[in-house]
């Protein structure tokens, strides 16, 4: 297994020596001699689920013979999996800290680039049963409240905004990733949760979003990189290029992400 991974790493390095730094157009670098084929595995933060799934389909349509596989989870869980040797081509993290875990282990093929940004928003169930109006409501003991665990990026961001706003938050649960926090809102089991603006948008009319001014104190930057041990570096580059292309930017903006 280790030998196989080592071989993959060597192959990845040789193949990638020619890889240009990510350009804006997806077709520019992926059409050398035919588009990328095979399977490309993308490890991406849970908040990217919607946009990346769509971009993956688009890339598959543009390149017959290519399969894009995703592993969506909390960025910190993904970083752990990668440092434990999980085979992947691309890593997109919801914050710099978890990307640092991966780059400190020397797993990146080139320096990660920030491709988008996200801010926190308060998500409440439809009709706002807890009458939540702002961040200060997270200090109310009578409300059932969810935040992300401080170990994952959305939880780290939550701690930052609470500190900036001087709110002594009293959450009832610290969820393992942002989607788990959102699910609790969708089920109507919590009065409010602190999630990303993009999650509120993705949930459609099942949840309502409340923006709050302190959100600007914790803007998450999303870095992406091709991994050194990528089994399919060509397709990996193509995916990263697509994400950074005008098409990708538009898809991210449509989903509520901010431009980098």
């Amino acid at each position, binding site marked *: 297994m280790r030998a196989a991974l080592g071989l993959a790493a060597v192959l990845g390095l040789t193949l990638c020596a020619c890889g240009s730094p990510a350009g804006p157009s997806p077709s520019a670098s992926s059409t050398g001699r035919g588009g990328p084929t095979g399977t490309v595995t993308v490890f991406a933060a849970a908040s990217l689920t919607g946009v990346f799934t769509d971009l993956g389909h688009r890339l598959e349509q543009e390149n017959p013979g290519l399969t894009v596989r995703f592993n969506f989870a909390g960025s910190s869980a993904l970083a752990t999996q990668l440092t434990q040797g999980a085979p992947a081509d691309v890593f997109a993290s919801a914050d710099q800290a978890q990307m640092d875990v991966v780059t400190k282990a020397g797993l990146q093929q080139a320096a990660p680039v920030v491709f988008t940004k996200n801010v926190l928003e308060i998500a409440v169930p439809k009709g706002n049963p807890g009458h939540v109006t702002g961040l200060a409501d997270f200090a109310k003991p009578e409300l059932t409240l969810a935040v992300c*665990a401080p*170990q994952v990026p959305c939880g780290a961001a939550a701690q930052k905004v609470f500190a900036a706003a001087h709110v002594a938050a009293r959450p009832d*649960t*610290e969820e393992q990733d942002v989607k788990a926090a959102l699910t609790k809102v969708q*089920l*109507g*089991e919590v009065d409010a949760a602190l999630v990303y603006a993009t999650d509120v948008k993705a949930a459609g009319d099942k949840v309502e979003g409340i923006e709050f001014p302190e959100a600007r104190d914790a803007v998450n930057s999303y870095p992406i990189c091709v991994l050194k041990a990528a089994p399919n570096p060509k397709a990996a580059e193509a995916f990263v290029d697509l994400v950074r292309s005008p098409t990708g930017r538009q898809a991210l903006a449509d989903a509520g992400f901010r431009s980098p």
Partner: protein
Amino acid sequence: MSRRAPREGGIPLLLLLPAALGTLFLVLPLVGLLVRAPWSQLGQQLAAPGVGEALRLSLVSASLATAVALVLGVPLAWVLARTRLPGRSVVRALVTVPLVLPPVVGGVALFLALGRQGIVGHWLFTAFGISIPFTTTAVVIAETFVAMPFLVVSVEGALRAADARYEDAAATLGADRWTTFRRVTLPLVAPGVGAGAVLCWARALGEFGATITFAGNFPGTTQTMPLAVYLALESDPPAAIVLSLVLLVVSVATLLLLRERWLGRSTVAS
């Protein structure tokens, strides 16, 4: 009960080899845990805030879950094994569903039943203001849901294996069914009940998916050891290993202790 392995004659290689591989397969990850454990920072990690809290919560909730499972599960196993109620096999299939259901799905199902918007929970919340999710009660409920089938299955097995003629004799001597159950059946299957309870407790202690879904994760209230391990793994893998070791030591010690005290040696075969 007195099946005894033949001591004479060599063990066939075709059995010995897979048996040895099976043992290795099950033991090797534990060896990995022990070898890679950060022994030098052990004391420091154990003294970290939250470890004792999570351990206490785990032990209390797993024991409560086992108690609930005993109170409800033993009668259920008796009904399944000893009565001819119509629809018995359907009931048996239904109560063992949590064995195959992914625990996370179990957690969502518990929300839909007992959550604030759930079919029963909605009524509890509007009528009495009781909200179960995100409480220690929710932890116990989630663990009971996942672990009770283990107890039911082992007690039913013990009941089926027990000699029904003792119960018949008690009945011909004039004992009613409740007295027979209490004075004859229960002592007869006590080792099976004990084994089932231990299995149930161990499953409850390790429960993760249903707990983190239905009870959430908050230190001191709902964060049991497996949840603490999972979250520690995200930020501090050595701490996660230490927490896992603690859980491992506690469960092995408890199982050994219970087997010595409570179960006698023969129950291993039942």
